[in-house]
């Protein structure tokens, strides 16, 4: 199935070399979880601070179980803030 994977701010360096922008479309196996994706791209767990699937927050405790669905947009930020 196809999902979109987005890494922002300093995490974008974990996207494949030479990739421009923050968004990657990927083919992944059914049953792939949020935690699988974080591991697959070597994002340090403590840096995967703000994790959104389709704009909705996924708490740390749910990331191991949360399976992605076709067309999901998974977006991750390190600890950041603004004003």
């Amino acid at each position, binding site marked *: 199935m196809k999902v979109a994977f987005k890494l922002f701010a300093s995490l974008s360096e974990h996207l494949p070399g030479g990739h421009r922008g923050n968004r990657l479309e990927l083919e992944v196996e059914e049953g792939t979880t949020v935690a699988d994706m974080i591991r697959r791209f070597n994002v340090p767990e403590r840096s995967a601070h703000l994790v959104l699937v389709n704009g909705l927050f996924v708490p740390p405790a749910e990331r191991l179980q949360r399976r992605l669905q076709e067309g999901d947009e998974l977006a991750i930020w390190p600890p950041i803030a*603004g004003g």
Partner: protein
Amino acid sequence: MGWNRKILRVNLSAGTCSEEPLNMQWAAEYLGSRGLATKYLVSEIDPRVDPLSPDNKMIMATGPLTGTMASTGGRYTVVTKGPLTGAIACSNSGGFFGAEMKFAGWDMVIFEGRSPTPVWLHIENDRAELRDAAGLWGSSCWETEERIKTELQDPLVRISSIGKAGENQVLYACIVNDLHRAAGRSGVGAVMGSKNLKAVAIRGTKGVSGIKDFGAFLKATTEAKKVLADNAVTGQGLPKYGTQVLMNVINEMGALPTRNHRDVQFEDAGKISAEAMHERRESDGKPHLVTNAACFGCTIACGRISEIDKGHFTVRNSPQYWGASGGLEYEAAWALGAANGVGDLEALQYANLLCNEQGMDPISFGATVGAAMELYELGILDDGAIGMPAPFGSAEALAKLVEMTAVGEGFGKELGLGSKRLCEKYGRPELSMSVKGQEFPAYDSRAIQGMGLAYATSNRGACHLRGYTVASEVLGIPVKTDPHVTEGKPELVKAFQDATAIFDSAGICVFTSFAWTLADVQPQLAAACEGDWSMDKLNEVGERIWNMERMFNNAAGFTATDDTLPPRLTQEAAKTGPAKGMVNRLGEMLPQYYQVRGWTPEGAPTAETLTRLGL
């Protein structure tokens, strides 16, 4: 003691400067800066005064931590009755001006009356005098700084000034210090302009003395700085990416107000984000961002210094804008960009530069352009009325309109009155995206419910800095709450509002609250200031300040019916994103909020609340 115990009163009508002792009883009850200056203002002016009349007063105030070694202790506040809203106006700024006021030996400066001719105030330690500003009138903030420094032959003098926007009484004119920091919101610069006061220049060489317990203060500030350094947000995120890093977050959440809040997601958000500021441009191979920057005593350094593309249409023939300068921050990038549908980063930086140069709040300016563009799209305004085609997304219109508004030309004069007056004039008041006449900042309350309540009840009109529940609802600071629910939000909003009043009144930056709680601020205040500065006392003072501001607004004529949101946010559902189909449910939160506050259903503090807070 934290305070200098000395205030300067400047009567602009009479041309006099006089020294007064600080009311220490009030300092014990209202702390400093925002709280203490507001206490002076509400005690000295009629709440129904015309904000632009000589009867209004304007106060520039420091807090007990301003100028000290407390991290971010450089802030000062401008308090007055605001011309944009008719409510209390209270805008604070970083940079170096506030600390300099403290070093010169003053806690605050109260301006009253109106000078018959333009003047500027020169303060050198204990000496203060008004000087003729006839030659400065008509200058930008940047020119004013340079010319005063040249005249005084002192590159270290710190200056706050108004540009043409303040002189022309653009209702959201700001007061700019240190080139690109500003007391930005609510039109405090228009009040300064109405008083014929062009600038305040301060040189202080006395440092800060009288810290109550210096050993304890050194320990408390050192520990608190370590908290900021060790926190991933204040130690890494903010210095590296600045506030603008929120652009993609808020867009992803469907909370990025776009095209005058018609939409909640902007297709070009990525092009105007913090990430885009780091990318190398195709035109010259340079990134937009040059470096980050810090205000006085700040160990976070979130500020952005950028260089515009010299080949961009806005500056191709204007080399004066080619150098590195302040911006973009999240709010400015949003208001000048997404709010108008403009995705051209260079055009946003140009508009931001002009806002800094001539002293205008980019939030209210950008949002007012957004309203004008919607009126244009609806056919209510045409090319003739505006002076050009102005559809959503037009960078050309944005660039031209910022020039016209800054100097008060043509349609720019109408834009300078803000979106409320503009939309009323053209028969569509509901299209002004504002509360109490002040335009919203960059969070759509259909997707972040608590912010709707924070906006509706903010004492200075729509504002994110009075109660930033985004910290909790989006970022999980101090705890994560669900942005789509209303339950618990009245309590959350009150807690943020009261705590923020303490950060503002202490003289420190509210951005420390991404890492600090009041428990981190308390030991610093307790070591610096004589008297009781326990946690209980701080909570009480924060609540007292909030209620004092509210009472001023109520006496100025505001009622519970003004604690509202435009119908677009409460009736037109979000079209896309995770909050698709949702409106802001203010009605579910407001009655509970009044109850939590100890107010009547009509939004007035009860006699019991007033007694409890000593008001």
